[in-house]
C-alpha cells in the first residue's frame, strides 16, 4: 500500500468490526484480513471514543462557539454503529475554567449514547483552584478522589493518569511520585498479555518540550508499561494527531473538538490557530478506537468535523 487518502481509509475502517483490520504502525498505515481462526478466538470486540480539548467557553477566530462543535462531535458519536462502550475525555473540558463551562459540557455530554463518559483533567480545568471544582464534579470513583483511575473492560485494562496538577517549573506536565507509585501497584498483578490503554492530557512523550508538550516524569511510568505486549497511549493537549511507536507502546495524540494548534515549532508560539472556521473544522474532530483482537494493536481512526 503506497498511499491512501483519508476517505478511503475511513471507508476501509468501516470494515474493522467484520474482519479487515487497519493499523497505524510507525505512522504507516497497513491492513490485513483476519483469518477465520483468529476471528474465532477473538474476544468480545468493542469500540470506544476519545474526545479531547473541548474548551467549552472558548471564542476565537477558528471557532466562535466551542459548545456547538462539541455538539457536532456528540452527533458523530451517536451515529456510530455499534455504539461505543464508553467515551474518554482527555482533558481541557473547559477553556480557562470559564464560569458555567462545566455545566454546559455536562449538559451536552448527557446526550452521548454510551454507558458513560470517563474524564481526566487538562490544565485549563484545574489551574485556577488546583482542581477543586473539577474533582468535586469528576473525582468520584477515582483514586482517593484525586482524578486518576483504572478500570477493566472486556479484558483490556484502562489507566487514566493526571499530569496537569504539578504544572510548575519549566512548564511541562508531571505525574508525581504518588501517582507513579500507584501505577506500579495497579499494573503489578496483570499478565504481560493484558492489553493496556493509558490516557492522559499532556503527551507522555516529548512531542515538543519547548512548548511544554511533554511530561517530565513520563519515562518512569512507561518503565512499568514496557513489559506489556500491547500498550496504547492516548493524549490530547496539542490539538492535532501525532503518532509514535516505541517497541510495544503506541502513542497517539488527538485532535481537539474546538480549535487546532500549529504543528510543533511551525509558529512563534502554540495556541489557537487564527484561521477561518471552515478551515478549522477540517482540523478538529474525534477518535474512534476499536479493540479488535487480543495481542493486536488497537484500530485507531481519527475523523474531522468538516
Amino acid at each position: 500500500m503506497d498511499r491512501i487518502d483519508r476517505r478511503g481509509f475511513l471507508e476501509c475502517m468501516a470494515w474493522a468490526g467484520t474482519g479487515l483490520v487497519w493499523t497505524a504502525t510507525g505512522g504507516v498505515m497497513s491492513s490485513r484480513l483476519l483469518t477465520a481462526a483468529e476471528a474465532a478466538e477473538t474476544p468480545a470486540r468493542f469500540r470506544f471514543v476519545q474526545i479531547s480539548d473541548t474548551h467549552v467557553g472558548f471564542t476565537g477566530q477558528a471557532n466562535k462557539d466551542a459548545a456547538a462543535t462539541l455538539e457536532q462531535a456528540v452527533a458523530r458519536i451517536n451515529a456510530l454503529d455499534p455504539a461505543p462502550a464508553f467515551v474518554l475525555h482527555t482533558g481541557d473540558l473547559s477553556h480557562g475554567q470559564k464560569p458555567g463551562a462545566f455545566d454546559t459540557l455536562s449538559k451536552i455530554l448527557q446526550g452521548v449514547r454510551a454507558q458513560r463518559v470517563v474524564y481526566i483533567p487538562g490544565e485549563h480545568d484545574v489551574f485556577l483552584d488546583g482542581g477543586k471544582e473539577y474533582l468535586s464534579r469528576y473525582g468520584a470513583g477515582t483514586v482517593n478522589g484525586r482524578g486518576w483511575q483504572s478500570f477493566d473492560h472486556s479484558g483490556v485494562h484502562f489507566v487514566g493518569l493526571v499530569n496537569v496538577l504539578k504544572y510548575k517549573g519549566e512548564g511541562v506536565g508531571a505525574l508525581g511520585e504518588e501517582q507513579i507509585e500507584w501505577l506500579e501497584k495497579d499494573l503489578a498483578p496483570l499478565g504481560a498479555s493484558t492489553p493496556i490503554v493509558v490516557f492522559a492530557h499532556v503527551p507522555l512523550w516529548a512531542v515538543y518540550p519547548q512548548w511544554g508538550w511533554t511530561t517530565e516524569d513520563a519515562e518512569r511510568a512507561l518503565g512499568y508499561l514496557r513489559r506489556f505486549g500491547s500498550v496504547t497511549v492516548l493524549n490530547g493537549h496539542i490539538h492535532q494527531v501525532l503518532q509514535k511507536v516505541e517497541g510495544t507502546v503506541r502513542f497517539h495524540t488527538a485532535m481537539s473538538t474546538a480549535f487546532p494548534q500549529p504543528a510543533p515549532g511551525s509558529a512563534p508560539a502554540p495556541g489557537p490557530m487564527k484561521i477561518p472556521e471552515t478551515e478549522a473544522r477540517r482540523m478538529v474532530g474525534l477518535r474512534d478506537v476499536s479493540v479488535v483482537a487480543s495481542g493486536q494493536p488497537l484500530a485507531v481512526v481519527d475523523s474531522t468535523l468538516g
Partner: protein
Amino acid sequence: MDTSGSVRTSLRPWRGRVAAVASLLTTAILIAGAAPGAAPVAVDIKDFKFSPAALTVPVGTTVTWINHDEETHTVTSGASGFTSTGLSHDETFARTFDRPGTYAYFCALHPHMRATVLVK
C-alpha cells in the same frame, strides 16, 4: 516577490509609529488617573511571552498586563502572592507595586512564560 517585500518593509515603520502613538495615548490617559511620580506601565502578553520580560519601575507604579493572545494566560507570582484569574483575549490585570523588590511571575497555564518586575 520583490514588490511585496518592499511593501512589507515600508509598512513596518508605519505600524511602529501607530503603535508608538497608541502607546503614548494610553500612557497619557493612564497618567491622568495615577499618583504623581509613578507613571503606569503596560506589559503586553503576546505569542506566549510577557513583553517587556524584565521591567524596572519606581515604587508606587501600577502595572497593567494586557493579553493579546486568543489563548488564556495568567499573571501569577507564587512567592509574592499575587495572581490574576484567567485572562481571555484583550482582558487586562493590574497591580500596584508599593514596596521595592524583585517580583518574579509566570503564567499558571504555561509556566515556561516567565518574567520579572523590579521595583526600586
